[in-house]
């Protein structure tokens, strides 16, 4: 018997705990969620009854779900553009700037602040008589004053808040790739008369493509699950207004019943399945679009 076979036989007992653990905590619950999404079930203690595709049809015809779904895509695209604009601008601006490390840390700070604290702070700033409107008044810009937290405006404010709170995280990921780029490339580019922006497009972007791809995929996955920031801005005193709901918020309302209701777990499962499928499709598509031959840095 060869050593190779011994290793093969040994692999199974070593893998078993992880396989069993993942089966119990991930595979079985996922299958259960899929099964439940075809039933009518409010949760443990309730009778399960088979309803086929009714929950999915219900999602499609629900104005609230369609809005929350559209909001999720707006969050993904507009928020994504905002986040990566901040990332690119930071990378261009921070190159060879004194105190760059400090700025990078400062941009990262919002990532580690609790969303609850963000909610309180923004509530204080964005209330009708809050800091933002007072500042606009002081600058004689009363025409720009808004009820920032009202249902029609709050979603735009949430997107800005999200960009502010997560950009540092994606900057940190992309910057790990940028840090690997040898400085002499930039020195040569400087000598050749390339501007900062040209250096970014010709050196930084192609040579940090791997980490940028990872950041974009992570952004897609996390933006499809946007939840905390919405609750932080609208508060947990009641249900968020439809204009500010994301698919994850809609799923949470179904899971809990909201502040005045009771759980509807089958409906929540259907939302979960739809979200999972869409996120998977998006990630696969984006991975294909971003695929490139790796540039070797020797």
């Amino acid at each position, binding site marked *: 018997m060869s050593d190779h076979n011994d290793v093969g036989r040994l692999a199974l007992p070593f893998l078993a705990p992880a396989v069993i653990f993942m089966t*119990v*905590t991930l595979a*079985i*619950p996922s299958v*259960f*969620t899929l099964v*439940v999404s075809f039933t*009518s079930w*409010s*949760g*443990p*203690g*309730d*009778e*399960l009854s088979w*309803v086929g595709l*009714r929950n999915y*049809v*219900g999602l*499609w*015809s*629900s*104005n*609230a*779900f369609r809005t929350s779904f559209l909001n999720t895509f707006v969050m993904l695209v507009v928020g994504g553009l905002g986040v990566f604009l901040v990332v690119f601008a930071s990378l261009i601006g921070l190159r060879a700037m004194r105190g760059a490390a400090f700025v990078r840390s400062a941009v990262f700070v919002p990532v580690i602040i609790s969303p609850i604290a963000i909610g309180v702070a923004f*509530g204080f700033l*964005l*209330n*009708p*008589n809050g800091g933002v409107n007072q500042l606009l008044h002081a600058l004689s810009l009363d025409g720009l004053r*808004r*009820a*920032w*937290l*009202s*249902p*029609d*405006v*709050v979603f735009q404010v949430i997107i800005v808040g999200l960009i502010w709170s997560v950009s540092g995280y994606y900057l940190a990921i992309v910057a790990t790739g940028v840090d690997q780029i040898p400085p002499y490339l930039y020195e040569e580019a400087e000598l050749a008369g390339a501007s900062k922006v040209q250096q970014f497009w010709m050196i930084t972007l192609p040579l940090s493509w791997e980490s940028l791809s990872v950041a974009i995929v992570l952004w897609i996955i996390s933006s499809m699950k946007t939840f905390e920031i919405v609750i932080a801005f*609208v*508060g947990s*005193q*009641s*249900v968020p*207004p*439809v204009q500010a709901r994301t698919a994850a918020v809609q799923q949470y*309302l*179904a*899971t*809990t*019943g*909201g*502040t*005045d*209701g*009771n*759980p*509807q*777990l089958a*409906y929540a499962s259907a939302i979960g399945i739809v979200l999972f499928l869409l996120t998977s499709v998006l990630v696969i598509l984006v991975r294909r679009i971003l695929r490139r031959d790796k540039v070797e840095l020797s």
Partner: protein
Amino acid sequence: MSRRQTLKRSLGLFAAIAVAGATVGCGTQLREPEAGGEAATITYWSAWNEGEAQQKIFETVREAFTAETGIEIEVEYLGRQVTTTLVNALGTGTGPDLFDAGSRNLRDYEQRGFLADMSDLMKTTIPGEDNTVEESFSAAVLSAASGEKGVGILPTYVNSNAIWFNAAAHPEIDKNPPETWEEFIAVLDAEKAAGRVPLGADGTVPGYNVFWFYQFMMQTSGPGSLRALAEDAANWDASEVLQSAQMVQQIVDGGYLQADYMGTKYPDAQNRWAQNEYSFILGGSYLEGETRAQQASGFTARTILFPTVDGNERTMEATASGLAANADSKNLDAVKQFLAFAAKKEYQELYSTEAGFIAARQDVTPPETLETLVDAIADATSTTQTYDLAGALHSAWWNDVLLPLNDQLFSGAIDAEQFVALGKEQTAAHISANG
């Protein structure tokens, strides 16, 4: 065990695993209740947090009960997030003996088979008193503590809903409160003419914005009418629905609310009301307690009852909260012994004196701020519970149809006619999609 029960148990077990981390993530020890033995130990998962008045009240009752009977009560103070854990545990047979429930979730828990029958407890004489448990509560409170199958909890306190004002600033209203909608509007007009802001509202809370429409529906059509709007789209055709929406529009168009009220984040408006910036605010019976630290000096919070409409009898909200017993508990006798003990007046009145709530027992003197409300509930022949149970019984419709539409009406984005038309249309779509 029948096949169906086996299936239910297996599914329950799956569910316990499937609902991520619900029963393992909260640091709660889950164990089978002890069967028999010497003195039983009762387990209780509480929705209160350490340090809250209700938690202190429970500790007082618990210590007295253990000293008297030798029966221990193991408590986990888990806070409001207990609900998901609790539902999963009760559904899989691993729940506590005792838990919190109220009008909002009574029917849901009853339907899931979580609630022990309370009829024998209701007939039990309270230790050291002459009356039974049942006799210590008013009809309105017993009704609020009941589901389809009778009383489901030992009620401990009651929430209601009223218009709050500062009696020190408005002694004339305290002496002679407006009774009808027309009189109330006249008061609002007078406040506005005097250069004051008549009404405050934390407009970012849809559940508060809907208080107006809910109250108008109760005062025009009575209990059952708001939840009926979820049950059949044709119910939107009733003239009272349009009338109720028109009265909400009257509040909006009248300019009685503070500027930018829809963008006001809780608790900004109620705190400013407590600082005398606004004359009135419509809110729950807990509002005085929530704003106590913010109240201007000399502030005397009082309520006026929601005005009557068209001479109809006034419908009062009485929403009960209390303690429920697990139908699967192995310690039901001990649990009911505890509940009868907890129903004693000396403990029930702590909800009034310590927590500032309306105690469920009818012979407890309420806090002075809530006297008007308590008297009205005691005298009411027409009562309802939280949002007419529309949110509790039709959660998806409530969250996805009514609250968003009401926000549009309350913000002035749509008028009463549009509100009714859209409500009917969206309710029909909701019913056809969800069965």
